[in-house]
């Protein structure tokens, strides 16, 4: 399997994605942003379609759309009571735009499928390098603002009372999330990216009770899903995103069952 360059690239990219999603996912779950993450992935689809239409690399289109829209979404949904409605509206608009751009770009349905559901074949060494740099940038920013972000994510009331710049933190986090979505969409596709950004961390919170512990476990769960998904996809020729989704969902259901058993005792 590793004799093929595309598989080596896919494993390298998958490893980067699992690490970034494990870390970001812990904050996504703590900040209750699963739905918003889903929306950003749809915006990513629209951005990729725009990239194709404009003759850019899809990743660059994704980056442009997700970063700009994450700031707008952050502003629109500052008030939590309208967050869901505002997010739904934006989500609908961007899916529509994505379809329009694809149609304008005259690309066939298989191209749309590869953006939406990901593809292991299309990842070049250059893509891996770009993903690596973007991921390092995300990790560096998290490293610098870690304590502030941790406080705001796990105790927003306490962080606000302390006078932390919670709005700026929120927008910074959304931009980081946009970057992570764009990076991770390369393999699992924009439609299923939220799987890796939410499920491993959502599972980890039932087993680990420190932020560091949750990150380590979420990374491990994401790595198992991505590596096993890639291998199974190679062997069976079925889509990699299906396997990753199924594995992560199974982990999550096991965690829910375990939690139920714990509380029943």
């Amino acid at each position, binding site marked *: 399997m590793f004799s093929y360059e595309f598989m080596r690239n896919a494993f390298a990219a998958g490893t980067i994605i699992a690490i970034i999603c494990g870390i970001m996912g812990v904050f996504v779950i703590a900040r209750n942003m699963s739905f918003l993450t889903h929306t950003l992935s749809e915006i990513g689809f629209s951005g990729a379609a725009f990239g194709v239409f404009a003759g850019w690399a899809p990743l660059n289109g994704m980056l442009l759309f997700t970063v700009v829209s994450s700031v707008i979404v952050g502003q629109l949904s500052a008030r939590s009571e309208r967050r869901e409605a505002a997010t739904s509206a934006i989500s609908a608009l961007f899916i529509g735009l994505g379809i329009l751009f694809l149609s304008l770009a005259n690309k066939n349905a298989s191209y749309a499928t590869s953006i939406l559901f990901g593809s292991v074949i299309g990842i070049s060494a250059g893509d891996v390098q770009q993903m690596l740099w973007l991921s390092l940038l995300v990790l560096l920013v998290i490293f610098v603002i870690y*304590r502030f972000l941790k406080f705001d994510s796990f105790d927003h009331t306490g962080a606000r009372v302390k006078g932390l710049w919670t709005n700026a933190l929120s927008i910074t986090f959304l931009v980081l999330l946009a970057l992570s979505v764009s990076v991770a969409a390369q393999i699992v596709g924009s439609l299923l990216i939220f799987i890796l950004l939410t499920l491993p961390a959502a599972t980890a919170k039932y087993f680990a009770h420190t932020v560091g512990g949750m990150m380590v476990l979420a990374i491990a769960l994401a790595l198992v899903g991505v590596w096993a998904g890639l291998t199974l996809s190679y062997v069976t020729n079925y889509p990699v995103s299906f396997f990753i989704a199924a594995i992560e969902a199974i982990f999550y259901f096991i965690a829910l069952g375990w*939690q139920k058993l714990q509380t029943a005792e």
Partner: protein
Amino acid sequence: MTETPILKLEHLGVTFPNHPVFTDLNLTINQGEFWSIVGKNGVGKTTLMRTILHQLRPTHGRVSYWPNAGDVRIGYVPQFRNIDADYPLTIRDFVGLNLTGWKWPWLSRKEKSAVQQILGETGLEKIANRPIGQASGGERQKAYLAQALVEAPNLLILDESTASLDPVTKTELLDLVQELNTKLQLTVLFVTHDIPMARKYSSQYLMLMPEGTEQGQIAGLTQQKVWEGENV
């Protein structure tokens, strides 16, 4: 005790559109004092606390910390926190969240020992590794208090923090605050509807009423005033 001011409110007023919440409030709070802030719902207790925390800009007057803003570190304990049964962090980690700054992501040895010390002082040592989502209401309030105390504040605001607790837990928590008040000269602002508790623990009171404010030694907060203030 020498009186060293720590917080001064001068001619303070907050007006929401067409609705003055309070006006011309003057108050000096000295280090080590234990104040109760009482008043009916809607008279502006929380608005006043938010103004003191600089979360709200006053319409008139000013809030000043003495001798300098940097000398006053505020710990704040609200009544509610957005923490459900699934909340994953342990009590120890939750308390450590307040140790922020441009520092390494992990806590230093000194910071870890500060967390350990405050867990000991608040009686949370034995359950420190329990997820806070699984803790009782009283344990959670103690953890909120411990988090507020971990950065060694010199002004502690309890914003109806004991309102949802049973009498035994309430007494336990306030005994602890009183001990810190005496031992460390910790200044306390206790926002409450519970007049007997206010009389038991505080030294001064500030009563907010629609027609104005009243302040004085706690002995002056008589039952008569409570009746006049109706359901304070």
